């Protein structure tokens, strides 16, 4: 008879993270979803209150499922400079930067954040799994690449009271940490790395530690947050916050090029209003030639962030220009703090050139009654939500 206990079973499709056990008591809606094979919550109790916590208190989001790669070795900087469109030489030790990287056709392969942890040690956090591409590009470079996704326990701690919370937690020296800075604080038997980064467009931090300290870090954070309106936040609230803050989401606003099957559905940085992330002064990086060519010939698409008339979110809307269909909405939300009806849209070139007469075709339903409205849209100058407190150093102590 087969002894079932000796059988190796890896049968969970969706696995818990280092924080799942801690988060379970808060998950009153039991609304879990599959984030790259790990458990994550859409909501914990109420998405509206979770969003409010991000904007007026502190929201905590488990980022363990995010793919993480540690890149070390004497050629690490040179190697990353070859992959990324930005100039990585400008990234100092203990600093973080937002990055995108392209394939040879100039199509965006993915976006993420790059941390410089020491002279020759970087950490890349990406939306997709990246091991294959990172290894493919490593040919000829003296670098070592390690998938550290499972080895790191990380939480995003976001909102105007987040500094106060972390200070109350006893993490010292944080007041001087500037946006995109990194510091380390001893914690229990090890340490917590803190970066002033996030995806909400407000004051916020990300805490990184080893799995053995995850439980303690969580407990002390939540204890310190009790008086400062701290809550775990779900993905729905976070999505709303990022749209309000003007951040694009891979897999939603653009597709990652390796996963595209239909010809032409990939996008270049120029087509996503991301030219500021491309440093053409660098003599060589993946996609440079194709991007230079496109710069000359003109892009096929134009990505715009729109302020939509009225209060009905333009979910999945077609965009019209003087009656002609010229594009589609990729992300949309009524943004409660900014009181703006935001839509991100992909417009076909050359119609995207003229953005004076755009309209969104919005369908909405009340009690099975469907209504269609044509709402005027204006391109936005900057993000709908961009508070000064996001940059203040030292931040507010509340």
């Amino acid at each position, binding site marked *: 008879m087969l002894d079932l206990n000796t059988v190796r079973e*890896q049968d969970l499709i969706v696995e818990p993270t280092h924080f799942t056990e801690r988060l379970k008591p808060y998950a009153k809606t039991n609304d879990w979803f599959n984030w790259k094979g790990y458990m994550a919550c859409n909501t914990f109790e109420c998405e509206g209150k979770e969003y409010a916590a991000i904007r007026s208190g502190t929201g905590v989001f488990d980022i363990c499922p995010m793919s993480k790669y540690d890149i070390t070795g004497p050629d690490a900087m040179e190697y990353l400079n070859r992959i990324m469109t930005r100039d990585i030489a400008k990234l100092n030790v203990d600093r973080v930067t937002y990055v995108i990287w392209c394939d040879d056709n100039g199509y965006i392969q993915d976006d993420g954040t790059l941390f410089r942890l020491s002279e020759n040690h970087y950490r890349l956090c990406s939306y997709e*799994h990246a091991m294959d591409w990172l290894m493919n590009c490593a040919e000829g470079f003296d670098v070592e690449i390690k*998938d550290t996704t499972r080895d790191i326990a990380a939480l995003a701690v976001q909102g105007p009271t987040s500094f106060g919370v972390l200070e109350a937690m006893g993490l010292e020296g944080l007041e001087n940490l500037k946006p995109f800075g990194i510091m380390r604080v001893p914690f229990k038997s090890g340490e917590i790395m803190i970066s002033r980064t996030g995806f909400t467009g407000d004051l916020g931090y990300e805490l990184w530690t080893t799995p053995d300290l995850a439980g303690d870090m969580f407990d002390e954070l939540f204890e310190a947050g009790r008086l400062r309106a701290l809550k775990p936040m779900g993905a729905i609230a976070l999505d709303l916050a990022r749209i309000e803050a003007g951040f694009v989401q891979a897999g939603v606003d653009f597709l990652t090029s390796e996963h595209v099957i239909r010809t*032409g559905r990939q996008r270049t940085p120029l087509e996503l209003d991301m030219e500021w992330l491309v440093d053409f002064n660098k003599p060589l990086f993946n996609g440079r030639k194709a991007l230079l060519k496109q710069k000359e010939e003109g892009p096929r698409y134009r990505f715009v962030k729109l302020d939509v008339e009225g209060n009905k979110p333009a979910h999945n809307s077609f965009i019209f220009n003087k009656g002609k269909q010229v594009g589609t909405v990729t992300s949309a939300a009524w943004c409660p703090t900014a009181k703006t009806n935001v839509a991100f849209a992909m417009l076909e070139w050359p119609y995207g050139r003229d953005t004076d007469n755009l309209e969104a075709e919005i369908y909405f339903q009340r009690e099975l009654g469907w209504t269609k409205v044509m709402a005027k849209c204006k391109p936005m100058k900057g993000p709908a939500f961009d508070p000064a407190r996001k940059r203040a150093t030292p931040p507010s102590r509340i």
Partner: protein
Amino acid sequence: MKKYDAIVIGAGHNGLTTAAYLAKSGLDVLVLERNDYIGGATVSRELHPETKYSNCSYVCSLLRPEIVRDLELPKYGLQVVPYGGGVTYQRDGNYYTNYDDHDRQYREIARFSKRDANAYERYTADVLKQTRLIRPFLMRTPPDPTSFKAKDLQELAYLASKFTGLGETGMADALRFWTMSIGDFLDEYFESDIIKAHMAGGGIIGTALGVYSPGTAYVLLHHYMGDVDGSVGAWGFARGGMGAVSNALYQAFMAHGGELKTGAGVDHLIVKNNQTKGVVCENGDEYYADVVVSGLDPKRTFLDIINEEDLPEDVIKKAKNFKIRGSSGKVNIALDGLPTFNGIDPRSVKMKGDFHFIDSLERMERAYDDWKDGTWSKDPFVDLLIPTLVDPTMAPTGKHMMTVFVQYCPPKVNGEEWTDADRDAFGQTVIDQIAQYSPDFKSLIAHAEVRTPRELEKEVGLTEGNIFQGELTFDQLMFNRPFPGYAQYRGPIKGMYMCASGTHPGGGVMAAPGANAAREVLLDLKRKNVVPEGYADD
């Protein structure tokens, strides 16, 4: 004597499809089948009490949904149940589990290589891209590239548009893909042996080529281009065995007023002034029709059931040169209970998919070496399934049925005809390989049907036992299938047509050749087309 509108030779699933469409259009159609049962290589027979085997084909993916719907096959009992899972064993007993959900699969591949786990995502996208090129052509007649007829030019333009639609890199990839070996292709993605071995099976099944022979990447595509309800690349079991496909087609044919005779092997076509007039059966019976459609493979069609004097010289030559090498065997096993596989929970999804016991491309290539040496592989590549775990109708409750497809198995043994002793030794090789991973397997065997190319040829009529009615190499695909100049289902004799796997788009339980052939017959008869168009891939 009665004259039919059309006679279809052979009640394989393609012959039945052609017959059903011709009958649907209102024609008086007769199907003549040599065996006492229908289905050809799409058949389920009860050779052991209460246990059904899918004697030849055993899993379903290629069957065109347009035809299933149009001929109302679900109404006639056809149900395809998707399956997934299975394992590829290493020699050391460790195994790779083929989870069919993305996340477990990613983690499982990562146990062998994290890079491969990620590369698999790129691989899937790239193969899917290639299927998008071929899928639109499954329900179309290939254009004749040397003809200047409006229809051919139009079809060529369509082909060109699909091709250029792939974009610059896509076109370059396609050209390479159609001609390269599955081994070389996999080497471009993966580093671990077992992952490559697991993926390579589809590239050699039914093919007298090795994993490093050019052309095998396309064979993989042929196994990837089907779908179960839109899930491209997925496979399922026809509930009740593959015979359910033929039985449903038969009933659809009957519902449209068809007539079918079994035990009616055709000896030859009656041809007068280069026009078919009917057929003469092996027992001397004659049947008449101006349209005769052959559901046999091209060799049998042109070298066996048509008199040489009725054929142009070039066709005889082309038929002789047609590549239809036997390379596969099959072992179907009735089991008194569920065998235990080392290290596997019997309740797990691992039991519910394909088992493979070869863990490197090297071993697969060696298996091919045996075939070239004129013998069956001593360490064969097998594709083993226990369908009863997904479809309990195949055996009494508690008993099981196992289907084992075997690559490679030669049409002759060291140049000599197969003997019964050879066949038994071949069966034993397969059983021994399985038993290495399942200690109680041998003791559970209640009955086994061992099929070498000899049996496949004798029972199904497949020349050399080639499962696809001809190799799926580039020189025998699209407008080259079966041969240049004859790829539009019309034979060299007026009124004579071909409708089976030896024509575009080739082998497998697909029904597309049968449907396409019917469309061409109806066109020539100036009748309204009743064959559905292919669904567009959106």
